[in-house]
């Protein structure tokens, strides 16, 4: 069993949509939607429900822990209250991530799928912040906004990276052969595969262990993927990426 996620939103549809999106990249992770508020029979109204969040956490329990992700205001407060009402024993394995809902949920789901620990999943969620400057159509990346004073998504490896900084280096460039390019699923494949390697890896200048940053590159078919790696596993990381790209991630060219 992996770490499970509970998605709390004011909107039932947003919560279900985030679950749907994250499930695409994390088919084995338990993802529970807890959006909207009860209002008798009929569709849920906009709001958050103490009972729904409580039931969602209960449903998600039983694995290696639960990470709760929320959208605005009352979703955060309702989730906090539910956590306060948990028995101390259950409380230990439930975390409330301070993260952007969509980006955080996807990063968390991918890490959970890869067997990451509760702490690692929370860190992945909190480090995942990406926005795009539409006027430039270039990815603008801000880690600091999510966790000031910390490195961001790659924190899990930061101590390893620090040690690795003196290690061997490796690199390579490949052209993306598949139609869809480096979209969500391949990005998840790369980030997950690199997660356990003792190396600092950048792909076109962004952290290769962050699925969100890889996706933010927006690399389509025919674009070049340039990898730089440093650390004991640098060569292994470069080889892994090279093979994955050359095979087109198993997708049609």
């Amino acid at each position, binding site marked *: 069993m992996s770490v499970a996620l509970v998605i709390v939103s004011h909107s039932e549809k947003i919560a279900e949509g985030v679950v749907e999106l994250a499930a695409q990249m994390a088919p084995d992770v338990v993802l529970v939607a807890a959006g909207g508020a009860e209002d008798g029979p009929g569709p849920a109204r906009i709001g958050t*429900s*103490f009972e729904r969040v409580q039931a969602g956490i209960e449903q998600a329990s039983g694995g290696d822990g639960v990470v709760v992700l929320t959208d*605005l*205001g009352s979703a955060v*407060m*309702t989730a906090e209250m539910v956590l306060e009402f948990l028995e101390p024993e259950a409380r230990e394995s439930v975390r409330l991530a301070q993260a952007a809902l969509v980006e955080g949920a996807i990063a968390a789901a991918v890490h959970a799928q890869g067997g990451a620990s509760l702490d690692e999943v929370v860190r992945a969620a909190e480090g995942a912040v990406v926005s795009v400057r539409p006027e430039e159509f270039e990815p603008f990346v801000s880690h600091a906004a999510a966790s000031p004073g910390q490195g961001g998504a790659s924190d899990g490896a930061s101590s390893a990276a620090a040690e690795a900084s003196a290690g061997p280096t490796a690199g390579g460039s490949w052209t993306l052969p598949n139609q869809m390019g480096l979209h969500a699923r391949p990005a998840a494949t790369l980030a997950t595969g690199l997660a356990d390697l003792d190396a600092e890896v950048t792909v076109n200048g962004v952290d290769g262990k962050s699925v969100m940053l890889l996706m933010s590159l927006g690399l389509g078919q025919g674009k070049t993927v340039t990898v730089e790696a440093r650390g004991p596993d640098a060569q292994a990381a470069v080889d892994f990426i090279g093979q994955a790209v050359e095979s087109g991630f198993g997708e049609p060219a």
Partner: protein
Amino acid sequence: MRMAESLDTRWAVRWIQETARVVAENRALLIDLDRVIGDADHGENLDRGFSAVIAKLDAGEPPATPAAVLKLVAMTLMSTVGGAAGPLYGTAFLRAATSLGEAGEIDADAAAGMIRAARDGIVARGKAEVGDKTMVDAWTPATESAETAAQAGATAPEVLAAAANAAHAGAVATEPLIARKGRASYLGERSAGHQDPGAVSSALILTAAAAAAGGEVA
């Protein structure tokens, strides 16, 4: 003005009944205030929440203590309100209940302590400060006035009346403020010029507490 009555379980029930009544009466006002600076659901959400509380009070055995009444309010608001007022007032009533313990009757110090506990709960939950244009701007002066009154030897109903008056003044004073918490904060300077709906509903709730005790509210 009625004779000041002691604050017991029956007072707590009257407080909640009076709150439900004034919230229903001011539903449109709260919705309007929330429409200009929020998401227009405050009046509807609170009305739904307190109506559900009244339904529970009417259906079940009467609670044994004032704290039991407030705890029932807290649990019901948390599950029925939906918006930010749910966890905020839920926490407020829960902390207020905890501060009263098993006491069957509330004296002036306990009344002030109850308001302080509710205020601290709202601050802990919403992380707002005075001046952020939130319900904290009503609860903080209410707490200070209640404690000053209690120290000066006021009766429990007088403590509640002092709190209600200060909460009302605090709510009115939110009008020129720029919101720094909650949905209204996204509006920036456009949030100025309207009272904060949460501060207004807070004043209504505290005024109901004083009215249920027969205290004189200006």
